[in-house]
């Protein structure tokens, strides 16, 4: 049972308790049998109401009793006035139950049911009840949910509720529920606002939340809210990159889109493309298609996503589109100022992980490329000071490193070319982080990393022909996905020792070259013969 402290009791107390319990139990049994009998006989009388009332006060979670009471409200022969009286009584009853057990789902719902049945509900009173209840426990989500219900019924505007949310925060900012409620109201308010208003409001919120984080940097509530504020909230889907090579089309957008919103126009005509996503899902960021036209028939290509047209350019027998700019942020000055404040916070609280994490988020938003090194330094600190979550920070570091390396690649790329080769070796990567750009590369060097537990993520390497996973401490290949274009696979210096897995891998791929040097498996006698049976033409390196 939640939060009940086990106390050793004396024999005497035990006996007394036993007696009390036996009495309570027999009262419960007698009560239940009366109630069930009356229900069976459809007798919805005062006694039924009285007995059930007494019993739900004892234990409000006996849901069937509430059901029976509702049946009584529906099946009674009370006149309107009496019914209204019973409804009012039910409001009092639920309030009393909530006083004892403010976290009973059933009681809160009974109240909703009653208020929905009242001829005229005093929503103001209900709102007061919520306020009172939240003063007692401002984390009670049942009560917050009920408030949300009342607010909708009473037609209270998000702006009005925002005042309430502010008062709750002022009263106690270490209150995740209040911050959550705030985010909810703001999202509603943003719905009808223009971007300038939204930006302005967000600026204010960033300042407010900074006050909380400086007053008590160890309380996590405000930091979550801050992270939300620092997230970019993009509403419109935009094309990030697209490539048409021979008959293959790959594209990815900044957010999930469905095939219905993608049009491929070749020579100004919509092309009928069968789009496929990686997991056969209906919406995805990343889409693959087959083009039925020959490249030499094409004069121009455009991709249309949710009404916006993106022209592709032709280069080296490929049609490509790429968006190559980091986003502009509207409140750079404020963010820089906050960054410097958080630097001071780090000096004052050198073990506070949140200050480091927020600095990272700020730097990433202000200028990822410029602050790249600082971001990595902060992440290394976090791995140490928040060791419970060190793997999270390592994965986050991998994600940023990959993003940065891809950015570097863009700088080497000639004007409009898309590079098909990337070297990510020796970067201590622990994850591939699902970066859609990977689907465009044909030659990928992931050697000397820590990707042994991330093989399932290789699924995104849809164009890959040559892949190196050497020196990754790979122990098994169970989760190695099927990559249809893969020809060369380098697995040198790993810990592979299962022949079955390797043979299984070969049957799924048409490999030309496989490097297995420096793996325990190399000592297995059946290795070469086994492989030769499946892939006789394979170039195999084992020593």
């Amino acid at each position, binding site marked *: 049972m939640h939060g009940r402290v086990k106390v050793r009791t004396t024999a005497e107390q035990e006996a007394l308790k036993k007696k009390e319990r036996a009495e309570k139990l027999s009262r419960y049994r007698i009560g239940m049998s009366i109630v069930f009998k009356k229900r069976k006989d459809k007798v919805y009388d005062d006694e039924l109401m009285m007995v059930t009332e007494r019993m739900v006060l004892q234990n409000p979670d006996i849901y069937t009793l509430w059901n029976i009471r509702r049946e009584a409200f529906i099946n009674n022969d009370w006149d309107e006035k009496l019914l209204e009286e019973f409804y009012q009584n039910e409001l009092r009853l639920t309030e009393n139950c909530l006083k004892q057990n403010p976290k009973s789902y059933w009681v809160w719902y009974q109240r909703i049911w009653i208020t929905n049945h009242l001829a005229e509900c005093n929503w103001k009173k209900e709102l007061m009840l919520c306020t009172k209840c939240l003063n007692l426990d401002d984390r009670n989500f049942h009560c917050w949910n009920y408030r949300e219900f009342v607010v909708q019924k009473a037609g209270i505007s998000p702006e009005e509720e925002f005042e309430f949310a*502010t008062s709750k925060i*002022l009263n106690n*900012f270490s209150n995740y529920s209040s911050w959550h409620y705030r985010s909810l109201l703001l999202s509603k308010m943003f719905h009808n606002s223009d971007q300038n208003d939204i930006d302005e409001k967000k600026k204010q919120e960033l300042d407010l939340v900074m006050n909380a984080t400086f007053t008590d940097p160890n309380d996590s509530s405000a930091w979550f809210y801050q992270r939300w504020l620092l997230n970019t909230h993009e509403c419109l889907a935009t094309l990030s990159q697209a490539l048409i090579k021979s008959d293959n089309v790959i594209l990815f957008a900044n957010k999930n889109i469905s095939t219905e919103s993608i049009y491929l126009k070749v020579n100004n005509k919509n092309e009928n493309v069968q789009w496929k996503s990686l997991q056969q899902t209906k919406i995805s960021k990343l889409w693959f298609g087959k083009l039925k036209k020959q490249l030499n028939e094409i004069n121009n290509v455009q991709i249309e996503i949710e009404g916006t047209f993106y022209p592709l350019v032709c280069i080296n027998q490929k049609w490509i589109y790429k968006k190559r700019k980091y986003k502009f942020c509207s409140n750079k000055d404020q963010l820089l100022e906050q960054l410097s404040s958080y630097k001071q916070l780090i000096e*004052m609280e050198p073990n506070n992980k949140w200050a480091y994490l927020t600095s990272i988020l700020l730097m990433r938003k202000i200028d990822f490329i410029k602050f790249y090194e600082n971001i990595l330094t902060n992440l290394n600190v976090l791995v140490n000071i928040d060791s419970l979550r060190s793997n999270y920070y390592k994965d986050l570091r991998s994600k940023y490193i990959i993003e940065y390396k891809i950015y570097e690649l863009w700088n080497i790329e000639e004007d409009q070319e898309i590079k098909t080769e990337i070297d990510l070796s020796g970067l201590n990567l622990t994850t591939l982080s699902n970066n859609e750009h990977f689907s465009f590369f044909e030659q990928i060097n992931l050697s000397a990393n820590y990707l042994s537990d991330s093989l399932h993520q290789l699924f995104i390497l849809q164009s890959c022909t040559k892949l190196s996973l050497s020196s990754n401490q790979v122990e098994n290949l169970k989760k190695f996905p099927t990559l249809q274009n893969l020809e060369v696979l380098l697995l040198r210096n790993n810990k592979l020792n299962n022949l079955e897995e390797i043979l299984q891998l070969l049957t799924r791929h048409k490999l030309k070259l496989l490097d297995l040097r420096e793996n325990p498996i190399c000592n297995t006698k059946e290795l070469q013969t086994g492989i030769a049976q499946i892939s006789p033409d394979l170039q195999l390196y084992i020593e």
Partner: protein
Amino acid sequence: MEDYLPNEYDVVVVGTGMTESIVAAAASRIGKKVLHLDSDEYYGGLWATFNFDGLQKWIEDLKVSKTSTKDVSEVDLESEETFLKTSNEYSTVENIEETWYISNDADLPVVSSKDTQTDSTGDGSGSGDEKSDDDKVEKKENVKQWSIDRIRKEYRKFNIDLAPKLLFARGELVELLISSNIARYAEFRAVSRVATFMDGKLTQVPCSRADVFANKTVSVVEKRMLMQLLTSCMEQGADSPEFDGFRDKTFLEYLNTKNLTPIVQHYVVQAIAMATEKTSCRDGVNRTKHFLNSLGRYGNTPFLWPMYGSGELPQCFCRLCAVFGGVYCLKRQLDGVVIHKNKCKAIISGKQKISLEHLVLGQGHLPPEVVTSEGEQRISRGIFITDRSIMQGEKENLTLLYYPPEQPDQEPVTLIELGPSTNACPQGLFMVHMTCKRTTNAKEDLAYVVNKFLKAEPLDPLAIRSSIHSHTQTVSPDKRHIQEGDQDNRGESTEESPKPQVLWSLYLNLPASDIKLNESTPSNLHLCSGPDLELDFDFAVNQAKSIFESMYPDKDFLPRAPDPEEIVLEGEEAPGPKFEGDTEAEEKQDVEKAEKED
């Protein structure tokens, strides 16, 4: 005719001041036979609270000497017994000066107060304007000029303390009230704000986390500084290595090494630690810790105010004493004590000689023979009825201000302002209590603070002030803004607001609380001091504890008293260890509540 009292007691307590009453309750609670006397007809002695009429009577009575006229010859002594006459000279109140600043005329023109808000810039949130029209209408009807007659007529609505004190929410007295289950006799109100004087104006001190969060006068980095300093004082305590280098240094010297901004330093020194330049580092840290420990238990400041005045509290202990069989007798004069072989053997009261094991005497009942020093910590007091708060705005119902001296020859003054819903005065009025260590006399000692914050000149009946009723607590805290508060709603300023007009004032000097007995005093004679200079009751509680311990070293000091319904009369089932479980549960609730509250 005096009541006849039984002749033998374990403990006789004379005087119903705070310490005396606690000792009486503690002794009675463990089954000792207690007689509790007071020569006055009211409880509390110098700790008493009076309504306006009662205060006037008290002032009158001071002019009449109550010293015993009994002579040794009248006392029936046995061999080797000596008689020491008691004296009230150690509870002498001096320099009483009562002044009216308003007229006696009850027929002054009625003023309508339309401008309830206009003269206050302090109420920065501006949301005060949202008061409903109903409110305003009612107010108009209510507005009537205050006159001497009217104040006298409404005398019952005043509760005036001779020695106003606050309770730290986790101070000795609160813990004692809870642990002894005496709290149920008393009612409290949380002090709504702690103020400080900074940069020429009064500001509310951010003392809770919520206050620090919402404060707009300090930067975020300063907020962290403040919170960090407070947390380190609270969590580490004065014995922490953090303060090793400052054992013989002042608190200020310690703070100077922390690179605090002046504003943060001000908050900590003047408002939270209530320290001066001379306060040692150790004291400063401990005072800060004390303050902070008490925060968040019952509200946004660490202090509680006893409803109906501090004088209520001794009575709570007397009630407990009586419940456990203590005998009470007011208006009963102690004439002297009988000493036998360096032991206090009995007291003489009227015609009776009452024998005892222990004698507990309030300082107004000491035989001069046992006193070696009259003490130095004498007290200057000022009591003022005013028409508005010294710092207008929200939360103005209960304000604490510590005001450090401006000149080397001045003493720091503690100011407590009692407003609406404290029951200290009728709606619309404020009562200001000032207390400091006496150097000359009360009026002179307090003059610099009175001049700073009050307008203590006779009110010209023609220049009628219009907003007597202006600022009652009508701004709900829910209406506070942090974002767009047009002005600084936390640091309320009084710059442009008129000072409160004093309607009535009373100055007085109370005797010293650090009176000392000489070494030959019988060991079963125990001295209870009068009110001390500190803000809280810790001194009295600790003194009572140590008296009790010296009387009954092996007994529990005020263990939890059962609730009335728990008391089982003889013959019924004995009250078993049942409550112990309850106490635990209560404590747990307490902790949970505290956790929730901040």
